[in-house]
């Protein structure tokens, strides 16, 4: 059984044959996944991020939100916007709401002028706002 799991893991890595694929850290925060999008993404890496997120959403129970930190993205062209939209759509079909956090104002203006509508994803200016959209509360111990 353990061996089967191990070989399955290895298969997963073997399919990921991009030489310089960046490591995406995907953290769990309550019922949410939290991931940071790197500043520049090659096409394959964007797909890799999408796959990794979908895999995590499907494999873990009780997830109802996906928070994507896009504050590092300085330029979002129509392709990058398409990938973001598809991440949102696939998250939705896996039962989670995708929220983009920290979209830069210049990027937002550019997307609107470019005629791109991010319909499948919600946006929030701060992490707190994103969590309140998901009706999650951070309880601090006094």
């Amino acid at each position, binding site marked *: 059984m353990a061996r089967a799991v191990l070989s399955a893991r290895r298969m997963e890595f073997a399919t990921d044959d991009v030489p310089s694929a960046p490591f995406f850290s995907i953290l769990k925060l309550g019922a949410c996944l939290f991931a940071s999008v790197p500043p*520049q993404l*090659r*096409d*394959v890496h964007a797909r890799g991020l999408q796959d990794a997120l979908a895999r995590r959403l499907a494999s873990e129970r009780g997830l109802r939100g996906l928070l994507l930190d896009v504050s590092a993205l*300085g*330029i*979002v*062209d*129509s*392709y990058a916007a*398409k990938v973001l939209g598809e991440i949102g759509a696939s998250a939705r079909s896996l039962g989670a709401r995708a929220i983009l956090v920290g979209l*830069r*104002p*210049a*990027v937002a*203006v*550019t997307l609107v*002028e*470019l*005629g*791109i509508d991010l319909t499948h994803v919600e946006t929030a200016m701060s992490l707190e706002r994103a969590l309140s959209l998901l009706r999650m509360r951070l309880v601090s111990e006094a």
Partner: protein
Amino acid sequence: MTVPSVRDAVSRALGGVVPTRAMASILATLPPTASQSVGTLDVVATQELVKQVSAGVKTFGGALTLVATRELRRAICNGFTPAPHEARVSVSSDMDVLVVQTRCQTLCRNFFGATDCVRLATAASELARNIYLYAKRGELTLTLTEEFSGVCLTLVARDQGPGIANVAHVLSGNYVSKTGLGRGLIGTRALLDGLEIDSAPGRGTIVKGWKRARLA
């Protein structure tokens, strides 16, 4: 008669504006291009020098007025319009699209506002991606030209791909493509001041876009 160097021109233009003590350290921080003779720097090198000098003046508590800045630029250029700056990027992979984004942003940084930089880099990225998607390979040229009291960035995307059959239809906004090409070009036009397409089936495509900015 020897032509003065840029450094000499800067020190003459700043004479009387900043104290002598500040002058030495401002001159010491100038980029290596300052040792060239006046009038040889292109528009990007000139602007970088002007920015550097005005930042230096600011650290000593002063500020260059608009007139003084203009005077300084004229001294560096020896009274002429500086040569245009041209950057060529050959596009044949998705990596090159990222290269185009970075190159465009570093080129625009000293001339355009922050939002305009993002607009331009996004537009350049769209044009480069069109090359990569539809023609597989081609070339994108970014040219920064100084015009009177301003600059103009021109993006020219050139490829030998399949070409566009009905350019007027694509730009009218009624064209719907599965791949999103038509929307992309209209969006790119919205980000710029103007966009022209020269294309016919089998003859390749040349897309030229431009945006202007005032020189501070």
